[in-house]
């Protein structure tokens, strides 16, 4: 299971269409955390930063606060200029710029982290 968290539904659908694995899409961080609390632990997460309600950074903080989610690989998908290294301690394994990313970038991360 892969989580895609993005408040832009069309962008989220595009990401989902690039992968073959089962995915769940969330428009905000709270719904995603609720799903995890139900026991659905994703193999990896594609996460937008600017979200309605708690932002992507808050979500990352929540993830590392719990043993069962601290090691989930997260790929940030954003238009912001963020240094990936500064987020490495939050389990961030990749950073994709929405303006230049290509389907093979998404597939590459899925291939590497969701098996």
């Amino acid at each position: 299971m892969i989580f895609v968290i993005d408040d832009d539904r069309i962008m989220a659908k595009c990401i989902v269409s690039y992968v073959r694995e089962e995915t769940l899409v969330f428009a905000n961080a709270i719904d995603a955390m609720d799903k995890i609390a139900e026991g659905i632990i994703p193999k990896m997460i594609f996460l937008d930063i600017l979200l309605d309600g708690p932002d992507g950074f808050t979500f990352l903080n929540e993830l590392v606060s719990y043993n069962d989610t601290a090691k989930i690989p997260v790929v940030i998908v954003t238009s912001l200029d963020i240094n990936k290294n500064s987020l490495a301690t939050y389990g961030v394994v990749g950073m994709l710029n929405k303006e230049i990313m290509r389907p093979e970038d998404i597939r590459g991360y899925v291939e590497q982290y969701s098996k």
Partner: protein
Amino acid sequence: MNEEVDGILLVAHELKAPLAVMRQLAFVFEGAGAKDEHVRAEMIRVSERAIRQVNDLARVRRLEDGLFTMEPVAVREVCDAVSHELSYLLGNDLGSLDVKYKNKSRLVIANRDLLYSVVYNFLLNAIHYSDDKMKTKMIVSDKHDKVKIVVRDYGPALPIDIWRKIKSGRVDKPTSMAMRPGSSGVGLYIASKFSEYMNANIGVVRHRDGTSFYIELMMSNQASLF
């Protein structure tokens, strides 16, 4: 910055997200028939060009914060990179692009990203409006303590008011050009703002069959590895 221009720049910032979505939607059609493949490829390229321009416009707002570092920049590397990107973005529409390096000095004092955008906007305009039979030319040369990048544009003549604004070194807002359909002058506006930030001069030379746009930058004396 006046309110009108600030409004334009805000709108540019807002356009980034929908343009990025449009580009991704074109990717979703991957695997469509060969007949539609060129349409899909064109959609991607058009969105990428638009994204670059709105990104540049959004950057104009950030110039006031002075966050763009001035440093020694390799001119040839920048010009080559722009030519490479345009050959990808324009595909068959590029025609032939002739780049000549006559400069001995290799480094200028600039911000790489801003210089890249100035050269990109000059070249994109030149290619877009040039008569198909004409070659687009870019010449890099140096004189005294300055390096000059000239882009020869064979497109329709530049309106006199725009020409004067560029000559005076100040294009204060995007302005539509009657002789260049579809142009808002946004490329020149961006080039003017970025040049001003880098203490560089931009200018134009009118020819009977077009215009040469140029930017003059201060040479850097730092040793070059390129």
